[in-house]
């Protein structure tokens, strides 16, 4: 077990005591965990298929072709159709479908009347309706959330990594390195973020897989947005550097690396932590904005920005798209902001009494 600093423990306890932030944190984390296991709840593949006394678990792993279940085609079996057949034949075979039997890519063109924009329906298990090509909105929201959150966490980790490294080097080493570094950061920070992302995304080769494209989008975004945080790190490091304990460490003969990692960072980290939730919120908003503009994730990746765009251009005919997407976006960002406020409160050296 990592021994937590008693001060940190105290801060954590204080965070727990701020109920609004704490519960927001619990809800957000559970939502994210839920979305990570999304295939078990929202999926076109069945959870369990019992066919000819054999059990299949198709959720993860390889596709099963239609032929394997006695249907005459080689491509992936349509489990909902299979379920219907089993029920009609009243055979011993059975199938257990997830709660929402659709995946975010699949178009549910089930009959002649389905030509896009079906309104929410309990009967068809489209709880939030469908989009232009009859894809389930809820499925796209959930998987979109998973991607956005993962993206935001990756964004947070990477920007902080770069910002901490550069910021603490500038702060600790000072002098020319600081001067030059700061100028570089200032110049870099003035590169227009959105334009650069748009330009770079448009030259990304399309033969990259979706994973690659998403990671490179992440890297591009990180590359043009780490600068903001370096100022704070540098300033905090500067402040801490002149404290006696650092001088003491130097006198003992600790190496600069050790001083930075062991002594400076733990004391600087509180600044960072208070920014973290807001960085997450910013990341979610910018990926949504980029998708909205069409420069984000490659289609047909589920994304909130893409949903918003569809919703806005069909505001009158399919209002449910905007309603659910905006609601999800507002909910997520509110949760994140509540967490952020609570963290800031908990890490505040001047203890306020608002929440106690």
């Amino acid at each position, binding site marked *: 077990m990592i021994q937590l600093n008693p001060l940190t423990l105290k801060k954590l306890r204080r965070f727990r005591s701020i109920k609004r932030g704490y519960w927001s944190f619990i809800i957000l984390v559970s939502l994210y965990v839920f979305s990570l296991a999304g295939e078990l709840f929202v999926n076109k593949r069945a959870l369990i298929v019992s066919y000819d006394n054999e059990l299949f678990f198709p959720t993860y*792993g*390889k*596709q099963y*072709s239609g032929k394997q279940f006695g249907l005459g*085609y*080689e*491509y*992936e079996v349509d489990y909902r159709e299979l379920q219907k057949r089993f029920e009609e034949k009243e055979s011993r075979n059975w199938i257990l479908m997830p709660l929402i039997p659709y995946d975010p*890519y*699949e*178009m549910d*063109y089930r009959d002649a009347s*389905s*030509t*896009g*924009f079906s309104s929410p329906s309990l009967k068809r298990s489209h709880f939030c309706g469908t989009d*232009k*090509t*009859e894809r389930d909105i809820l499925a796209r929201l959930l998987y979109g959330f998973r991607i956005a959150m993962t993206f935001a966490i990756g964004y947070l980790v990477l920007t902080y990594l770069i910002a901490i490294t550069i910021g603490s080097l500038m702060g600790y080493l000072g002098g020319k390195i600081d001067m030059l570094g700061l100028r570089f950061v200032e110049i870099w920070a003035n590169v227009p973020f959105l334009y650069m992302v748009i330009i770079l995304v*448009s*030259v990304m080769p*399309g*033969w990259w*897989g*979706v994973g690659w494209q998403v990671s490179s989008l992440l890297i591009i975004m990180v590359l043009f947005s780490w600068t903001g945080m370096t100022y704070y790190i540098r300033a905090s490091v500067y402040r801490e550097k002149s404290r006696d304990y650092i001088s003491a460490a130097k006198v003992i003969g600790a190496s600069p690396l050790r001083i930075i990692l062991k002594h400076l960072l733990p004391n600087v980290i509180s600044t960072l932590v208070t920014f973290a939730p807001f960085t997450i919120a910013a990341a979610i908003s910018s990926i949504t904005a980029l998708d909205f503009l*069409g420069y984000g994730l*490659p*289609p*047909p990746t589920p994304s909130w920005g893409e949903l918003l765009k569809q919703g*806005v*251009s*069909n*505001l*009158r*005919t*399919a209002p449910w798209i905007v309603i659910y997407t905006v609601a999800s976006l507002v909910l997520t960002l509110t949760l994140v902001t509540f967490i952020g406020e609570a963290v800031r409160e908990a890490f505040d050296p001047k203890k306020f009494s608002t929440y106690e």
Partner: protein
Amino acid sequence: MEKLYGKLLIPKNSPLTNDMKIYTYLNILVVLFISLSTQSCDNPKLKPPREKSPAKNTPQNNEGKTFDREFVRELAREFGKEFAVEFAKQMKGGSPLLISNQDSGSQSGITDKAGNPHPLLVDCSEEVLEFYSKNSDCFKILTSDKIPLTLKWMDGSEETEFSSTAAQKGGTWEVFMRDFPRTLRTIGPDANGAFRSYLLDYNVLSLVHPHPNSDGYFPGLANSWAVGEDGKTVYFRLDPNARYSDGEKVKVSDFFFFFYFMRSKHIQAPWYNDFYGKDKFQRVTLYDDETLSITFYKAKPDIVERVSIRAKPEHFYGELDGEFLSKYQWDPEPTTGAYEALPENIDKGKSVTLVRQKDWWADKKPFFRYRFNPDKIKVSVIRDYNKAFEVFLKGGIDMFGLAKTEFWYDKLPNEHRLVTNGYLSKVTFFNQTPPPSYALRINSQRPPFNDLNVRIGFHHAMNFDMVLEKIFRGDFVRMNTVADGYGDRSHPTLKAREFSVDKALEFFAKAGYKKRGGDGILVNSNGERLAVEVLTGYRHFEDVLVVLKEQAKKAGLEMKLKILEPTASWKAANEKNHQVVFSAFNSFVELFPRFWEPYHSDNAYEEGGDSKYTPDGSLKQKLTTKVSTNNFTQTAVQKIDHLIDQYRDEEDLDRITEMAHQLSEMIHDHAVWVPAWKKPWLRIGHWNWVSFPENWGPKESRDYEEFQVFWIDQDKKEKIVNAMKDSSPVSKDPTIRVYEDYKSN
């Protein structure tokens, strides 16, 4: 060099100080010296100043405040001319420039023996005359007794007018554009925007116009025309009333000038330079002040419309120079059409209002008299399409294209209050034009598509049936050949390959893709997945591609979609960097389709003609890809090449038809082009104060604006606007109308 004169040395719009003036002159001298010593003496830049300098360019140095660039350049020219003459005298004892001009000029009738220009060309500037003289094989002046007497003159009197006599003049036609035009030039960089149609394409008259309801023609700037015996020359007799909007008469010499203009490098339009080049438009001949003839390189069956050009107002341009683009950026040329763009009616960034000329010369002219009815066309910028639609529903725009399914069915359903109250009409008009060529173009150069089996498999893996049924709700039909919509020239029986998982799998297996991987995508024995990139610039067709992608998975094919901005996608495809590109080209309304641009190997590889094939007819290895051509499929098949060459040379319509069918078949067999869909109709919504002729429009209408046969009914407008206040119905006339006169099959 003109850049140096104009831009580098003399800063734009900056008042020059005395020191700078001296510096400027010195620089000009240096530059002139350099240009003379590096270029030959007949440098076209070295010429005397124009006698008739346009008033707006008069030098304003009388108070010594500012120096006009034009003035400095005139000085430079004058100096240059003297220098050249002097230089030439010393070298050869005479000016080669002037002497050679007079020689060739007098032979073609452009100048007389003494070097004076022909009376028809008295207003030409030196440079223009020089151009004509240099190209004296292209520009000829003969006497009117040289007009063949055997000509059969036509005047379009056998054709019927396609407009309505009920049309009323007046009112403002409100339209929208997505972006403010970047220029009011109709040629050169940025000129080819949507706005140009209002200025040029729908507006300006050509010599003769193809009749949109028949195969005949109706007169435009020319009153009558005749095809010469060689089948390559068309004679035109100008309408003596033809005038530009500034009151100047349209002269025969303007058609000389047209070619000077179109072949000038200053317009920075290589496509036009080439299109109107010497090799196609071989000769223009003037006979008298109203007769001219144009000779094309080949006796094509549709020769009349091919050579039917527009007039270029020479009196307006005088001559062109390196500043053409900037000079005419916001200074529209006088037009022969009904509507005129005046600088005072431009609200930059917001709208451009075109005004109908008060006494338009063609007001009473048959085929024009009941068209171009509104007094004004107000083109406003609305950047967002959906917002524009909302503006339309409020009455701010008069007409709106409803081709998109969701607009027709969901956003403006038949039960919409505006429709049931009789304010708005929904019109479906079946037209007959070559459709825009929506298709997936496969780059046959890039693996795995270098294998014919993969290409055929790809065809069978595309579920366009579902796209047509679900996304377009059965209103669109499948395109079948590379040349649909050309009447008899289109292949009568050829059908696009149908969606069939079994067939696709069969062909993919032939190409070695036999096993399915864990994700259901086929793999070959090297472990390569059958995954291809599909590029497009059409964000609004994302759903189409998504449906195709999901359905293609059934056939074990993965499509990676890459949706870019239109320009970025166009660039990528132009560099032939794509595997598959989904795009469309507008087809011209013409008699027979074009094959050379998209399917000839000369547009695929740099190596010319047959040098890219081995003796047995297969393609050589390591050829250089040719970029920026329309051969997006990189088709290079010797047999197709040869047939296209013959097709281009052929002059007989029956043979052309036969060869067009053969070519369609061969390209179908080559399987590089997956035809998508076509719309057999135009579908629009319009406010009922816009009235149309009885049969709505001519057969070959490509959009509702093209022939401008509608009119704005002011009384109805008032009635509707009043009725809207209390939402009361205005009339019981049907508001959902279908015109099937020109419905084919």
